[in-house]
């Protein structure tokens, strides 16, 4: 085919694509023709740019490619179906969201005119009605405008069981959405739910014209080649290889890079080697233990932020053999407190973690709403021994304490094969032996440890004494997920409440009340106080030990500027700002 003929074909194809929207996927051969045309236009644009340069010194053409090393490939690119952090990090480049976070981790509007609050009238006095006003000028990458209809569709799409959405958190509070005009939507909630803005509006809107009526959207073409509305457009996904996104020329906030390559490198050591050779420019979600090697690398900046991921140990308050009974050892708060005081977390952080981490205090360390009046549970073996004596546990013949014929021995379970966790266990095992407590290490592969009721999982059936893992709040505002671990209504029971997350059987009416306030209180100051009080109640009940705060580790090549990772936004809030220097 001659060049001219292929151009005509391409134009016809473009026209037919526009007419048919996303509903009729075109054969691949045709897509290639379209690509050719795009490339040619780009060349022309560049020539024009050179001419203009004389008058206008500022050159805003997107330039250069940044390679991001990703060690976990996403499963798909529709955020609610393939919900995980690594997928969201890539999706953020292809989609804007109604609100986002800035370099100070503050909630700021992106597609909306303003972040809705009671003061600015975006949220009604009773907290049940939320008005969203979208900025004009946002379009899908196929040219269709983004409208409030798309927002309403996103809610319907997420709630439709046929979508098989992984999460409905927050969206399940919506009773109805009224589309007033193309740029205005009024959301009615079934009940006041303050975390709504941060729990739902930070996620992308999905295009109605692409996904409406698609059966099994998770297995659709869209799931692996999405049409977004963000600063970058999806270009290709090579399974096991990479995802490439290219600058969106019509983006309201134009990106400075021509393209970003998300290269999948499953092995951490190989990823570090690629950073050293300059094949990879940016890596994230690295391990604390890699920091010493990273800081030695030339031309690579290492950023380690004290993060929201906190390693914690939950004490089972129920008897693992009979969940209707209290735990034979941990029922006594003095025993729980003594065990916590018997673990030397300071040595753990300075030794095992080589100082890269901090001894933790509460669920919300490093969060603006952390209760900073609380101090970490101290390491004090003498006080621990005194507490155990007081509780009636006396040393037996083998040095392990005994009471009423019961030895002070418990199982400690976490994920098998994680070296840091296993080293921590060995240290604490020794610490506890010194105060006459036997800690038996009983680890499981994570799919068994977190397994539910139907598969006899450890978490599901409450078959543990202490269970250890890392978790973090899912959004900048605290939503349901935080309370689920602690509410008495969330106590897990395979018969009556198999989906509960409170597997340790914790129940305290005072905490339930504070948690309710955290979800419903409209006065921000009162609400934050409730959240701080809740931390204090959990702390005083000594049933969860926050072991240490993990660091979020980023490595960024000198040639890339504008990443500025933050605790909440990570590296992905700032894609449009990334640029290359010195080339």
């Amino acid at each position: 085919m001659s060049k001219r003929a292929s151009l005509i074909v391409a134009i016809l194809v473009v026209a037919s694509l526009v007419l048919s929207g996303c509903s009729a996927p075109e054969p691949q051969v045709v897509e290639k023709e379209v690509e050719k045309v795009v490339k040619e236009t780009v060349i022309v644009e560049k020539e024009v740019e050179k001419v203009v340069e004389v008058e206008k010194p500022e050159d805003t053409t997107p330039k250069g490619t940044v390679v991001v090393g990703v060690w976990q490939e996403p499963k798909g690119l529709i955020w609610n179906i393939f919900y995980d952090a690594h997928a969201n990090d890539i999706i953020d480049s292809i989609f804007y969201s109604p609100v986002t976070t800035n370099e100070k981790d503050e909630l700021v509007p992106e597609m909306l005119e303003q972040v809705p609050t009671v003061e600015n009238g975006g949220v009604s006095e009773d907290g049940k009605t939320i008005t969203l006003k979208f900025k004009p000028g946002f379009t899908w990458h196929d040219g269709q405008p983004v409208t409030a209809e798309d927002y309403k569709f996103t809610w319907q799409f997420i709630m439709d069981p046929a979508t098989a959405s992984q999460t409905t958190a927050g969206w399940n509070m919506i009773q109805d959405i009224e589309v007033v005009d193309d740029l205005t939507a009024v959301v009615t909630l079934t009940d006041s739910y303050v975390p709504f803005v941060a729990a739902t509006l930070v996620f992308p809107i999905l295009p109605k014209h692409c996904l409406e009526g698609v059966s099994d959207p998770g297995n659709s073409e869209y799931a692996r080649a999405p049409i977004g509305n963000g600063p970058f457009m999806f270009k290709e996904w090579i399974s096991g290889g990479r995802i490439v996104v290219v600058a969106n020329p019509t983006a309201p906030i134009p990106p400075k890079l021509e393209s970003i390559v998300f290269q999948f490198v499953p092995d951490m050591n190989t990823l570090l080697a690629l950073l050293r050779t300059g094949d990879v420019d940016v890596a994230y979600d690295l391990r604390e233990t890699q920091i010493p090697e990273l800081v030695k690398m030339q031309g690579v900046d290492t950023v380690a932020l004290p993060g929201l991921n906190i390693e914690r140990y939950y004490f089972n308050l129920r008897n693992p053999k009979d969940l209707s009974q209290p735990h034979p050892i941990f029922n006594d708060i003095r025993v729980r407190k003594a065990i916590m005081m018997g673990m030397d977390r300071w040595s753990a952080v300075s030794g095992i973690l080589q100082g890269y981490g901090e001894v933790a205090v509460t669920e919300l360390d490093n969060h603006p709403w952390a209760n900073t009046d609380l101090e970490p549970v101290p390491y004090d073996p003498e006080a621990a021994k005194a507490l155990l004596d007081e509780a009636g546990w006396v040393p037996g013949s083998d040095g392990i304490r005994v009471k009423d014929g019961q030895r002070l021995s418990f199982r400690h379970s976490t994920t098998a094969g994680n070296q840091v966790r296993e080293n921590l266990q060995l240290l604490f095992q020794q610490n506890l032996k010194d105060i006459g407590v036997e800690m038996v290490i009983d680890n499981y592969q994570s799919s068994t440890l977190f397994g539910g009721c139907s598969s006899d999982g450890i978490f599901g059936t409450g078959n543990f004494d202490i269970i250890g893992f890392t978790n973090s709040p899912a959004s900048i505002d605290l939503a349901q997920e935080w309370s689920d671990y602690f509410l008495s209504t969330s106590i897990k029971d395979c018969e009556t409440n198999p989906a509960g997350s409170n597997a340790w059987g914790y129940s305290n009416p005072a905490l339930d009340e504070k948690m309710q306030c955290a979800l419903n209180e409209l006065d921000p100051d009162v609400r934050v106080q409730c959240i701080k009080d809740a931390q204090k109640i959990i702390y005083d009940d000594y049933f969860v030990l926050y072991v240490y705060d993990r660091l979020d580790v980023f490595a960024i090549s000198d040639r890339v500027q504008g990443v500025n990772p933050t605790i909440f936004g990570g590296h992905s809030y700032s894609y449009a700002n990334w640029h290359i220097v010195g080339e």
Partner: protein
Amino acid sequence: MFRYIVKRLLIAIPVLLGVSLVAFFLVQASGDPMAVYYSNPNITAEDLVRLEKTYGFDKPVAVQYLYWLRNVLRGDWGQSFQTHQDVLAMISERLGNTLILMFTSLAVTLLISLVLGIYTATHQYSAGDYVVTGLSFFGYAMPTFWFGLMLIILFAVKTKEAGLPALPAAGMYSIRGERTFGQLLLHLILPVTVLSLSSVAKYTRYLRSSMLEVISQDYIRTARAKGLSERVVLWKHAFRNALIPLVTLIMLDIPFLFSGALITEQVFAWPGMGRMYWEHAMLVDYPVLMGIILLVSSLVVICNLIADVSYAIIDPRIRINQ
């Protein structure tokens, strides 16, 4: 011969059924596919119940197996719980990459093993024999992940830092460049070195002992007595006979070329089957795991059959007993 082949293929049916049954229960026993959702704080309690129902995890394992079997018999290998893609589509995306890596390694391995095997057999107990034997055991004993990483550091990182031409460390094609055949060859060098070095030992030792056995046979002495040159004796009489057991060995290895090399693919970020299997095994994504297991076990059955049949063809002394 034809009846024999048909008979063997019919026997394969209960064998494959048995394999799938055992594999299914083992995979299920390895953990809970829902576990990944429990530790995700943004998934609500209602979501968990709904997802469990959608994927059928609330049904007994035996029922899940029967559903899976029914669909496979209809030609539907199911969908991944994780990627929602059809299992066959996922396998076909990765299989080619794995075969490129594995068959290149096999070819390189055979080439080196043939040379070394014959050399060590004809120079038995010479210094060269000891050196080759020693080195091949060294390669065999080397842990793949460590050796792979060392090669990356030496030939990709250190060479680049010293300003020398460096080899690519990861992937199938250049990260920033075009996807060309030349790039593919360059990217094959390190992983193929790792894979070949570990299997050269096996083939070399095999060929060496096979050659030694043949060389001591009476007909070789006869050939020498006839006054044939050493070259003709070795290549025409000894080598061809020594190859027969090697063919079986290769045929039995072929099915596992399809399942890929987990550690090598992981270290060199090669987008192959081994990596895919591992990633989905961690998540107990059983449709994907079962698909790969079924593929490989079918190949084991078929390649065994081919090995037996080819034996009869290569060696006229062997007749298949019907």
